[in-house]
């Protein structure tokens, strides 16, 4: 098909599909889960299952609560007490709330102790800390990213570098924002996270859970060894992920391909799932929570089940300044930042990873 005009182009997009086995020594599934820090929604689809299995249910209900802290100044994170008791003790995630990565100053504290500040040009210049121009710049830099490694020795309280960062964030430009915060640590009793922001308006939230049962859903046949599908025998990974999207969005897949309204229908070959359980959790979810869910789904197949596979879909925050690890994330017209596992009975898995229009390729 020839292009008549430039209007036939569409923004760049990337989707990575991987297949492997959880028992494979080189499998990086754990790294991918642990490195995707800011997750806002997770959904689990289990075919041939009427109610959420009890194991999963208890994990879903035990997902850590999170806090929304209003107007929290960033320098507080650097204060010695907070730094020692919270940041360095490990696994504290914080993300600025209601800030848009393509418009506003956006901040994130990664559980590794890295503080990422994605700033507009004015703020960056006033702050005077060293950073990199964002990869989202158009023609001239208007956005910069500063990464401060709080776990680094050169930034220990008392050092010159520490003093400089502290001065910039406290005296020079006192950056503040609403923050979502959550922490994964069993020994929370020792120093609860909430005790650190009693000076600020904050609220504690529990992730919201919704479960629904789908019935008589046509579902594509897939084979774990064939990402690209086999003619007549199994569907390819792209057909499957579109179907998965359709089911999660409540789209009718029982269509005749010839109707006026929509030509979409479940790809062939297909089977009909009598029942399927779709459970969705929304909140500020830590990578540890996701990993627990993934492990539990694997164990679901310890005993023989009718389901050939289950899926675990994780949506990241589209306005997070990072996608995986410290890779910069942005928002052009949609801030794709998500991954999805298809977990097969025999510990084989497929993993889909998607990032936005100008993002780096997923790991």
């Amino acid at each position: 098909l020839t292009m008549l005009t430039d209007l036939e182009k569409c923004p760049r997009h990337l989707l990575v599909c991987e297949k492997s086995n959880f028992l494979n020594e080189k499998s990086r599934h754990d790294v991918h889960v642990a490195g995707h820090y800011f997750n806002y929604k997770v959904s689990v689809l289990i075919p041939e299952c009427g109610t959420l299995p009890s194991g999963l249910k208890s994990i879903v209900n035990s997902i850590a609560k999170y806090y929304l802290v209003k107007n929290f100044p960033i320098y507080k994170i650097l204060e010695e007490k907070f730094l020692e008791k919270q940041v360095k003790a490990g696994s504290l995630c914080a993300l600025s709330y209601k800030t848009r990565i393509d418009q506003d100053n956006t901040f994130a504290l990664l559980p590794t102790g890295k503080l990422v500040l994605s700033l507009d040009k004015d703020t960056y210049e006033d702050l005077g800390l060293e950073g990199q121009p964002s990869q989202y710049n158009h023609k001239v830099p208007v956005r910069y990213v500063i990464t401060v490694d709080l776990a680094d020795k050169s930034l220990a309280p008392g050092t010159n570098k520490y003093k400089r960062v502290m001065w910039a964030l406290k005296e020079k430009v006192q950056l503040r924002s609403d923050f979502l915060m959550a922490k994964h640590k069993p020994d929370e009793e020792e120093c609860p996270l909430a005790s650190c922001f009693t000076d600020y308006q904050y609220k504690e939230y529990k992730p919201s859970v919704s479960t629904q049962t789908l019935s008589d859903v046509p579902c594509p046949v897939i084979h774990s060894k064939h990402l690209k599908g086999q003619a007549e025998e199994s569907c390819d990974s792209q057909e499957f992920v579109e179907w998965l999207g359709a089911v999660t969005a409540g789209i009718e897949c029982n269509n005749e391909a010839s109707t006026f309204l929509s030509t979409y229908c479940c790809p062939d070959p297909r089977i009909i799932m009598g029942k399927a359980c779709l459970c969705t959790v929304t909140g500020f979810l830590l990578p540890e929570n996701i990993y627990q869910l993934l492990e539990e789904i694997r164990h679901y197949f310890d005993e023989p089940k009718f389901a050939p596979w289950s899926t675990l879909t994780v949506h990241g925050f589209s306005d997070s300044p990072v996608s995986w690890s410290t890779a910069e994330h942005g928002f052009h017209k949609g801030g794709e930042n998500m991954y999805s596992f298809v977990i097969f009975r025999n510990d084989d898995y497929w993993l889909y990873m998607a990032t936005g229009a100008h993002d780096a390729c997923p790991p």
Partner: protein
Amino acid sequence: MVRFKSRYLLCEVRMSDPPSLQLLDDRSVFTALRNAVSRAHGDYGAGVCGLSFAVKYLNARTGVLFLRCRKSHYRLIWSALPFVSSLESRGQRLPCAVDCLHVGGTIRTCQKFLIRYNARQIQRLLPQCRSEEECVEVRRAVMSCSLKELEEEEEEEDEERGEVSAGQ
């Protein structure tokens, strides 16, 4: 000096009744083309037509038609040519078809193409002539088809625009 990149479409208007070619004028052809582009490409196409789209030359004897448009949109104009099924001239509706013979980036390449095309046409037409006068008439008609003047004119236009583009 940077100037706007143009594309030139060398076309041929074919009439079911060839003598009625004589009735054609630039305006009627332009209107028919613009309507065809609007039908094929909607308001967007019509908008694009407002942009340096012009009938540069029309030979009412042979039906050779020479169009200019922006390089970025020539495919869009080109694709609409089959939508021209008739021309309105002096109150008459004349069934016709427009074929594109050549697409060029400069008038010169179109001119070269036209010379070759005309030579072939002469060879094809001359054996069909029944009298010497007819031969002369065909020759004159075909030879009258030249873009040379147009080229000079365009160069002048470019010079005029040179001042405009000098800023780059």
